[in-house]
């Protein structure tokens, strides 16, 4: 190579590095993450983790959970006051929707009415609200039908919609409100959120873009674009992160895959437990309609091994030993030292008292196809039940099919494995939707339980006027649930995610900034991209 050509190459290299440097200053940052399909964009229908991530980024709520501790802070509201039976919120007057429309009390009333009218998602949280009235443009009053202790907490699940925009986009339907904008909101966002939807395919991907004029705190280095993909295989996520083409995994990656990625230099994000991993037994289907049979299975389960299976590294695990129906840290939980354990003798005794013949049983143990770890729990259970002389078979169900099947008791498998969270951080939202007999069958309630005493304690916990009353109600509930065993309480969970070094998320790494509400740690506006 002669001198001239060397000079030319050196010149080209300098020029290209200069250009790249200039580009990186202005480069758009993209955050890529994944979750289980389906991504539901309509906030009134949001219920699972993917839906929550979408909701918390496109919409805002009157209040937010306080970071790093219990309680709530004002968000779209500037303050609130209560006399016990009603709550009056004063709203911020400087907030605009993504459309440019001003945010007013009418939007709050509309959002509440729409949620109630559709009756989907988490609308059951608002069953005890008698009326919501706009006093003036910046004041809104909620009146409760009866004492409802978790009311303020439940407002983190009432995203506020842009009434004008939705009304201008009503689809086909009967009555004045036609379809309540369902067709429009299934593909568009209409909130005040820090991000707006660019494109949305509920089975594949949602692309979101950062809003230029957000009213609350936003990290200057928050991602410009977010690509939330659905239904990626664990092996795909593992390869993509290793190659630097993916930033945050879902929490459903098996611990072995997480461990391999950590060994490659990835970091772990954590969202501390407001939920648990449950093995839910269909209490309407023989032989599990007999309490003794359920107790036999609950005693035969190997809790110690279950906890060992979820260790990611020496000091991080996807959960800790369960102590009963209520995760440690919530009202009514048993002490952390009081962990459940396998007791084969008791199991045999309960089985002997069961009215069904063990030899004729064939328990259907289902697992969710998108969560490979559950297959191992299914095999563990199958092995435990075999020791007891009970035959079982394992069934793999995709999430969408499972969620549809559980709406009817007769289609619900004997045992369903589920991660369930307190959707507002309050035990009421963990347990009411799961066990109250008035709640229709959803993915949270494959037990289809109908027990008057459980209903009574759930209502007492809801109506409790102070912490002591609520603690007593939930303690009694916990005791009752352990006595009738509608569920095998696997472990208290902690969500763990693998992330590349490109992204930092204080709400998912620093306990003093954690929200204590599942999914809210994924507020992209608080994240920081390092490139």
């Amino acid at each position, binding site marked *: 190579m002669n001198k001239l050509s060397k000079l030319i190459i050196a010149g080209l290299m300098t020029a290209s590095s200069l250009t790249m440097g200039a580009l990186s200053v202005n480069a758009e940052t993209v955050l890529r993450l994944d979750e289980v399909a389906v991504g539901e964009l309509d906030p009134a229908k949001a219920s699972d983790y993917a839906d929550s991530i979408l909701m918390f980024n496109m919409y805002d709520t009157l209040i937010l959970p306080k970071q790093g501790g219990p309680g709530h802070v004002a968000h779209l509201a500037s303050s609130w006051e209560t006399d016990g039976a009603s709550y009056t919120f004063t709203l911020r007057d400087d907030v605009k929707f993504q459309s440019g429309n001003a945010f007013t009390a009418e939007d709050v009333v509309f959002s509440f009415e729409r949620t109630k009218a559709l009756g989907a998602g988490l609308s059951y949280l608002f069953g005890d609200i008698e009326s919501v009235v706009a006093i003036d443009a910046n004041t809104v009053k909620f009146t409760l039908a009866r004492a409802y202790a978790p009311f303020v907490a439940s407002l983190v699940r009432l995203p506020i919609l842009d009434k004008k925009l939705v009304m201008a986009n009503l689809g086909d339907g009967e009555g004045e409100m036609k379809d309540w904008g369902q067709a429009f909101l299934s593909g568009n966002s209409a909130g005040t959120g820090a991000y707006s939807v660019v494109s949305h395919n509920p089975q594949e991907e949602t692309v979101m873009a950062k809003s230029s004029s957000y009213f609350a705190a936003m990290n200057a280095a928050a991602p410009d674009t977010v690509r939330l993909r659905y239904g990626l*295989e*664990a*092996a795909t996520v*593992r*390869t993509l992160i290793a190659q630097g083409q993916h930033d945050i995994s879902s929490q459903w990656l*098996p611990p*072995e*895959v997480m461990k*391999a990625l950590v060994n490659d230099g990835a970091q772990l994000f954590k969202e501390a437990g407001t939920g648990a991993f449950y093995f839910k037994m269909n209490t309407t289907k023989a032989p599990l309609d007999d309490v003794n049979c359920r107790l036999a299975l609950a005693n035969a389960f190997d809790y110690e*091994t279950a906890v*060992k*299976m979820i260790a990611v590294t020496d000091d991080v695990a996807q959960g800790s030993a369960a102590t009963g129906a209520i995760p440690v840290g919530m009202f009514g939980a048993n002490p952390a030292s009081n962990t459940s354990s396998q007791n084969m003798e008791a199991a045999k005794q309960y089985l002997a008292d069961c009215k069904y013949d063990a030899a004729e049983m064939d328990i259907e143990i289902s697992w969710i*196809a998108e969560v*490979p770890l559950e*297959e*191992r729990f*299914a*095999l*563990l259970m*199958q*092995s435990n*039940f*075999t020791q007891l002389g009970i035959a*079982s*078979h*394992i*069934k*793999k169900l995709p999430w969408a099919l499972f969620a549809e099947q559980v709406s009817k008791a007769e289609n619900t498998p004997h045992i369903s494995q589920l991660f369930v969270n307190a959707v507002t951080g309050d035990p009421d939202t963990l347990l009411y939707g799961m066990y109250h007999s008035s709640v229709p069958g959803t993915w949270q309630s494959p037990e289809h339980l109908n027990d008057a005493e459980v209903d009574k304690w759930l209502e007492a916990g809801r109506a409790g006027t102070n912490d002591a009353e609520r603690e007593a109600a939930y303690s009694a509930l916990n005791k009752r649930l352990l006595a009738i065993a509608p569920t095998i309480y696997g472990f208290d969970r902690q969500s763990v995610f693998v992330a590349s070094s490109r992204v930092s998320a204080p709400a998912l790494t620093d306990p003093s900034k954690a929200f204590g509400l599942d999914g809210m740690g994924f507020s992209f506006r608080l994240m920081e991209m390092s490139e």
Partner: protein
Amino acid sequence: MKRIIFILLSNPLSLLGLFLVTLVIILAIFADFIAPFPEHRGAVVDFVNFNKAPEWPYIMGTDLVGRDIFSRIIYAYRISLLLGVFVLSIAVPIGVTMGLIAGYMGGKTEYILMRITDVFLSIPPLVLAMSIMGLLEPTLINGMLAVTVMWWPWYTRLVYNIARSEKEEGYVLAAEIIGASKTHIIFREILPNCLPAIVTKMTLDFGFVILIASSLSFLGLGVQPPTPDLGSMVAGGATYLPDSWWLTVFPGLAILVAVFGFNLVGDALRDVLGAD
């Protein structure tokens, strides 16, 4: 017969095929004695030894609940072979009989039988099996039935073509002239002349049946856990690639060995028996 054996043994590929097939059959039959951990074929978990890379005594490693993969592959061969025998022993007699009748009788009989066959042939085999499995519970027996339903038409098509040309041959005409019954002509005169082609196709198909059954269980529609099955072992392990490679690679190789072995033997038989 001696000539056949000589030709088979003198071709290295045939020899390799024979060796692989024999190996698979021996492993399957004597699984209880060969498998280091026979109990691992069932609902057993051993979380002390889970997800281990190949090392003694787990020469192919362990799966995510601590079961020995080598033992499970051996038992999975048993299921695969059973499936092959079941499918072919039902599909072949049905397919061959229909082909013989259609080919020899001709006319309306031929028209009806062959149109039914065409309907089955027009649906892609895996799609047909999947739709059947969608209707039925995914169990071993139903998996066998689903594969059987998609398999017989190929024999009908094959035998029909041979029977049609054979029925013009002198020996068939001679049998007709001396007043032999149709059953006699079909099964005693024409069938023996179709046998080389049938035997060759059966040997080749044995491998394909194993492959299709593995595909079904890969999709979660075949044999259900904890029964070991090569397809579902590959599917279950795929999640953990590339780190826990032994979960996928060894069951995958096991499928390769069986299918490759039967194909080589099938090819060799085709050469020997002159069937095309």
